[in-house]
C-alpha cells in the first residue's frame, strides 16, 4: 500500500531537521580523516595540511592589521592562499600577499637629554626637486644641494625620546609550490617564492621529500631552501661605521641563505602526534640594516657626538631544534611546542608555546594561545659606542639583537558559516620586555630609557572555503 504524502507529523518533522543538521555539520568535516584537527589549518609546524583530500580546492583569504604602540609601525597585510588537491594526490598551492607598512622605527641612536637632529645625505630624483615629508618623530626637511643628485635630509627627536625614522613601504610577495606522490608513502615537493619591496627583494627556491613509514605512523622529511636577497637602500649601502652625515658611494648589496630541515613526525597514540625538527641555515652577504646607526657618546656626559652606521658580520650560521606536539583530547586539540635556537652571532633563544582549540558549539571554536620567548644578546650588541674607546669589529644597537623576553597572548575564534567555509578572527598582544636603564652608562645616559622593544597588537580576520 502507498500512503499519500501530506504535512509532516511532529516526529517526521523533527527527524527531518535533525538529519539536515547532522549532515550539514559533517559533510565538510568528514572530508579529512583527522577530523578533530580539521579546524586547525594554521597549527604552526604540525600537520598544517592535515590529510589533503584529493579533488578539493581551498581558498583562504585574510587581512592582518598590525599596530605597534607609541605610533610606530602600522601594517595592513591582505593574503590570499589557494590549495588545489588534485585527484592523483598531487597538490598545487600558491599564495599572494600585499603589505603596506607605514610608521617609524628606532634609528638606533640613544635618546638624549636635549633634542637631537639627524642629518644625512640622500639621493634625489632630480637636482632641483625639493621634498618635504613628515615623520613620526617630528618634521623632516630635505634641502637640495644645487648641481648634484643629492640632498641633505634632517629630522629631529625631542629630548628623552627614542629617536625614530619615518618610513613607508609596500611589499608584494608570492609563492608557488607543487608536490606529488612518487609512491603512496613518498611525497616530493618543489617551490619558489618572491618578495619585492621598494628597497629589498628576496628570491628563493625549495625542494623536499617526505616518506611515511610503519603504516603512516612515522614520517621522515628533508627539505632544502636556497634564498638570494638583494638589498637596494634608497641612498646606497653604507660602509660599516660610516658617518651618517656623509655621502654613501656604494650601490646595492646582496645576501645568500641556505637552509636545511630534517624532521621526524610520529604518532605515539591515537591522541598524540609529536614532531621533532632540526634546522640548520647559513647566510653570507650584507646583513646590516642600511638605515640604522649607533650614537657615539661622550664618555663623561653621555651626550651624542656623532652617529655611525652599524656594522654586522657578513656570515651567520643558525641551528634550531623544534619539538611540537598535537594532543587530541576529546573535542579539544592542544598544541604544545618548544624551540631552542643558537647562532654564531652569539644569540641563544628558547620559545615555548601552548594553544588549545576548544569547540564552543558544533560549528564554532575558540583557540587561546600563549607564547613565551627569551633570547640572549648577540655578542656585538651595543646600546651606543663611546668616543675615545676602541671601535669594536662589529656593533649594532638593534633591539632585536639585544637581550629581551617577549610574551604573546592571543586567541582565535572560528565559525563555520556554510557547509565548507570558515570565518575566523585572531587577535594577539605581543610585548617585549628588557632592560631599560643601563647601570654604568656614561653621564646622563644612565638615566635615559635605552630599551626600544616593541608592544604590538595584531588582528587578523579571514575567510576560508573548500570547493
Amino acid at each position, binding site marked *: *500500500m*502507498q*500512503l*499519500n*504524502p*501530506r*504535512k*509532516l*507529523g*511532529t*516526529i*517526521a518533522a*523533527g*527527524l*527531518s531537521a*535533525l*538529519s*539536515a*543538521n*547532522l*549532515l550539514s*555539520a*559533517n*559533510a565538510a*568535516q*568528514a*572530508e579529512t*580523516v583527522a*577530523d*578533530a584537527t580539521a579546524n586547525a589549518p594554521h597549527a604552526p609546524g604540525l600537520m598544517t595540511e592535515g590529510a589533503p583530500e*584529493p*579533488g*578539493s580546492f581551498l581558498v583562504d583569504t585574510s587581512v592582518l592589521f598590525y599596530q605597534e604602540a607609541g605610533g610606530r609601525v602600522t601594517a595592513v597585510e591582505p593574503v590570499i592562499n589557494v590549495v588545489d588537491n588534485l*585527484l592523483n594526490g598531487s597538490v598545487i598551492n600558491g599564495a599572494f600577499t600585499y603589505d603596506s607598512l607605514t610608521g617609524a622605527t628606532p634609528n638606533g641612536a640613544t635618546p638624549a637629554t636635549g633634542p637631537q637632529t639627524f642629518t644625512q645625505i640622500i639621493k634625489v630624483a632630480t637636482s632641483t626637486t625639493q621634498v618635504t615629508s613628515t615623520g613620526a618623530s617630528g618634521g623632516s626637511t630635505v634641502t637640495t644641494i644645487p648641481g648634484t643628485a643629492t640632498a641633505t635630509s634632517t629630522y629631529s627627536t625631542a629630548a628623552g625620546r627614542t629617536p625614530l625614522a619615518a618610513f613607508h613601504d609596500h611589499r608584494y610577495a608570492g609563492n608557488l609550490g607543487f608536490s606529488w606522490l612518487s609512491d603512496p608513502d613518498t611525497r616530493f615537493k618543489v617551490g619558489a617564492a618572491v618578495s619585492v619591496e621598494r628597497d629589498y627583494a628576496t628570491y628563493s627556491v625549495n625542494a623536499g621529500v617526505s616518506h611515511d613509514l610503519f603504516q603512516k605512523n612515522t614520517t621522515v622529511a628533508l627539505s632544502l631552501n636556497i634564498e638570494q636577497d638583494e638589498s637596494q637602500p634608497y641612498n646606497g649601502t653604507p660602509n660599516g661605521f660610516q658617518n651618517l652625515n656623509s655621502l654613501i658611494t656604494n650601490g646595492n648589496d646582496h645576501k645568500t641563505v641556505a637552509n636545511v630541515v630534517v624532521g621526524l613526525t610520529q604518532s605515539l597514540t591515537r591522541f598524540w602526534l609529536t614532531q621533532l625538527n632540526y634546522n640548520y641555515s647559513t647566510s653570507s652577504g650584507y646583513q646590516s640594516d642600511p638605515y640604522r646607526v649607533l650614537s657615539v657618546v661622550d664618555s663623561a656626559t653621555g651626550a651624542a657626538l656623532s652617529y655611525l652606521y652599524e656594522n654586522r658580520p657578513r656570515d651567520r650560521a643558525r641551528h634550531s631544534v623544534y619539538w611540537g606536539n598535537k594532543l*587530541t*583530547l*576529546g*573535542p579539544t586539540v592542544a598544541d604544545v611546542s618548544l624551540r631552542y635556537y643558537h647562532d654564531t652571532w652569539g644569540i641563544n633563544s628558547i620559545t615555548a608555546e601552548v594553544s588549545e582549540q576548544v*569547540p564552543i558549539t*558544533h560549528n564554532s571554536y575558540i583557540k587561546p594561545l600563549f607564547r613565551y620567548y627569551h633570547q640572549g644578546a648577540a655578542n656585538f650588541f651595543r646600546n651606543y659606542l663611546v668616543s675615545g674607546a676602541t671601535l669594536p669589529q662589529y656593533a649594532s644597537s638593534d633591539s632585536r639583537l639585544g637581550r629581551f623576553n617577549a610574551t604573546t597572548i592571543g586567541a582565535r575564534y572560528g565559525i563555520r558559516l556554510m*557547509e*565548507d567555509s570558515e570565518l575566523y578572527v585572531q587577535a594577539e598582544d605581543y610585548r617585549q620586555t628588557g632592560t631599560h636603564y643601563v647601570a654604568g652608562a656614561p653621564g646622563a645616559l644612565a638615566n635615559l630609557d635605552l630599551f626600544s622593544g616593541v608592544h604590538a597588537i595584531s588582528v587578523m580576520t579571514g575567510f576560508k572555503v573548500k*570547493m
Partner: protein
Amino acid sequence: MDAPGLVGPCLGATPFERERTQVQTHRFQAMGSPCEVQVDTPDPALGRRLGAMAQAEALRIEHKYSRYRPDSVVAAINAGAGQPVPVDAETASLIAFADQCYRISEGRFDISSGALRRVWTFDGSDRVPDPAAVAHCLLAVGWDKAIWDGIALTLKPGMEIDLGGIAKEYAVDMALAKVTHHHDVPILVNFGGDLRVSGPRADGARWRVLIDAIEPDQRPAWLDMASGAITTSGDARRFVLRNGVRYGHIIDPRNGMPVPAAPRSITVAAETCIEAGMLSTLAMLHGEQAEHFLKTQGVAAWVAR
C-alpha cells in the same frame, strides 16, 4: 537502518532500462552489504573516479563506526568500562542525533540495544530465548543508563552501543555529499538498499529503482525518483517461527521482545537517507500501528505485510 548483515539487498537499483545515456556503475562491498554508485556520464574514467570517492567515504565510516573493528571509535567507547570516553566532533554529532531519536521515539530507537540481538537468533528456526536471558540482557540495555554530555560518553560496565542502525544511511548521505561537492554529474548512491540520488538524471529523466519482491510469487515493483532518498526496513529473510508465531528481527528495546505484528517490509522516501532510514525503523517499531504512524507523520511510504 539495521546492523550490518541483517538486511539483505531488498532494493536493486537499476537505471531505466531504455538506454538513453550510459551510466557508469561502480560496485564494491562495504558495511556487510553490496554497494553501488551509478554515475550518469558516458565517461568511464569519471565514473571510476567518483565511484572510488564514494567508496572511500563508505570505508572511512565503516572503519570508524564498525562494532567489529578493535580500532574503531565504537570499540573504544564500548571498551570504556564505566569511564567517560571523549569523542571527536563527527562522532559527537552522530551520538547527539541518536540521543534525539531515542527521545522522540520514546525509547523505541536505542543504540544501546545491540546486545539483545545476541540472545535472539533470527535464522528461520524455532529458537526463542529464555525470558530470563532476555531480562538479564536488558540490565545492560537502555540509553537512559548512559551519560552523554555532548563531549564524552559514559556507558555502564557491560553496556555497548552499536551505530549500525544509522551508519549505513549516514554513509550514503556523506558519500553523496562528497561526490556532488566535486562534480555536478548526476549520481545514485546505493549501499545495501539504502539509496539516494543527487537529482534528476542528466537528460532530466527520473532514476528507476526496483523494489525486490518480498515473497517469491510477488512481482517486483519499481519506483521513479528525481530527488531524495529511499530506504527499506524489513524482516523478509530474518525471523524465528515458533508455534505459528513469526518473531521478526525488529526488537523493542523497552522489553527485549520482537515487535509483534510488524510489517514484512517498509520502504520510506525522504529528503535524506538517514531521515528515511530512521522513519522506516521507527515505523517498523510501531508494529501493528506502522501504517497509522506513517500516515499521521505524513511520510511517503510503501508497506508490505
